[in-house]
């Protein structure tokens, strides 16, 4: 056990209390599954932390006919259960139910997954990208809502003065899927992740995680699919387009080299489209 350390630990029961601690420099502690491994990465644990698990509003999933609001402190396990069977969220449910392992999923939170800056293999990031989620932040200047793509791009700067509080989703998807390629069943991070969704206008959205340092939409492929003369979801054809429009720069890492992460994308897209076609909304 480490020698006794004087550390400030606030279990906030309100957002105001959490923001007050944040203004004093406290780091946000969610489930702890990322931060608690800081020492193994050669990083000291923060001297001051503020935990969010006691703030009731951040631990709820609100499901309305036209939208869903997910509290940042909701765990993967709770998210998967809450959205199970909800049309259009099959991909997000798969992401929540297959990330890491059962023990981690009971602890790791939605907010933690999106805010771990160096975690390229976050399953929820691509799944939420294809939902075109909006991220609600509480900043030192007040609440702020921004699209998840912008949040992921700018989160390093944003999180210096903010706490992620909620994720907002419209219910405008008819089907979605989430395909991940781990090297084993569990215990490692996926080499690549492809999330796909089809909205009510039959437009396909595709996002990729774990291949580059930050998950992003595959806009080149989405545009190529829309530009086709007879746009229809076909696994083989989409995989061919994925090969042609593969604009990813694979990151290196202990699980896989960058070229491999990039190379597996077309077959994962093919699997993803096949999975999409089997979901209730498109079958």
């Amino acid at each position, binding site marked *: *056990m*480490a020698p006794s350390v004087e550390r400030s*630990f606030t279990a906030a029961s309100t957002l105001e209390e959490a923001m007050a601690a944040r203004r004093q420099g406290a780091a946000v*502690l969610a489930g702890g599954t990322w931060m608690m491994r800081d020492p193994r990465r050669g990083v000291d644990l923060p001297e001051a932390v503020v935990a969010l698990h006691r703030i009731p509003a951040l631990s709820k999933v609100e499901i309305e006919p036209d939208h869903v609001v997910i509290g940042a402190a909701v765990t993967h396990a709770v998210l998967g259960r809450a959205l199970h069977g909800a049309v259009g969220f099959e991909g997000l449910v798969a992401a929540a139910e297959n990330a890491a392992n059962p023990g981690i999923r009971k602890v790791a939170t939605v907010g933690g997954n999106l805010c771990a800056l160096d975690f390229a293999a976050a399953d929820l990031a691509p799944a939420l990208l294809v939902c075109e989620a909006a991220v609600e932040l509480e900043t030192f200047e007040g609440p702020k809502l921004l699209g998840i793509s912008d949040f992921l791009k700018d989160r390093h700067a944003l999180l210096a003065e903010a706490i992620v509080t909620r994720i907002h989703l419209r219910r405008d998807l008819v089907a979605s899927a989430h395909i991940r390629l781990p090297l084993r069943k*569990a215990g490692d991070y996926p080499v690549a992740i492809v999330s796909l969704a089809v909205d009510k206008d039959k437009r396909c959205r595709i996002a990729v995680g774990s291949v580059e340092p930050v998950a992003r939409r595959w806009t080149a492929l989405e545009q190529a699919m829309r530009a086709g003369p007879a746009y229809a979801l076909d696994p083989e054809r989409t995989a061919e387009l994925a090969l042609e429009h593969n604009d990813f720069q694979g990151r290196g890492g202990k699980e896989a080299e960058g070229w491999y992460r990039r190379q597996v994308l077309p077959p994962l897209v093919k699997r993803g489209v096949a999975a999409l076609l089997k979901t209730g909304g498109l079958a």
Partner: protein
Amino acid sequence: MTVTFQLNGEDCRFDGDPMTPLVDILRQERFLTGTKAVCREGFCGACTVHVDDEAVPSCLKPVGLVQGCAVTTIEGLSFGSQALHPLQANFEAVDAVQCGMCFPGMVMSLSAFVRDNPHASRPEIKAAMAGNICRCTGYERIVDAVADCLDQARKAGQLVGGIHV
């Protein structure tokens, strides 16, 4: 900082760094060495305990987060004078235990699983074990034992969800 919680049914108080991993307090302060600290990354499952009835890795649980919670370790699953948990009894009956390193974590993960999933299929049992690594690779016998346990409970007309944990 002082953290208080229930540990195997008894009051427990910890004075010190609230970011101390729960596993270290269990093993080094409470001498509950059934909980193993192996990978310390949440990958191997050997440190699994129940926190408010959920099976979670204690290596990644800062003790500050268990304030007011009920923690159960393998030692608290069935005390010496009590009958073994049905899952433990089944593991013993089919001789599923090999080196024993992973087993406390296996039992803690799977006892919560059988409680919550009395009709689990074999693939569901395997999925529930995905976070518990057995270096002896004795998985099939473990799956057999869990399936037998659920089967016996069903035949006895007992709700496996009623298994005490």
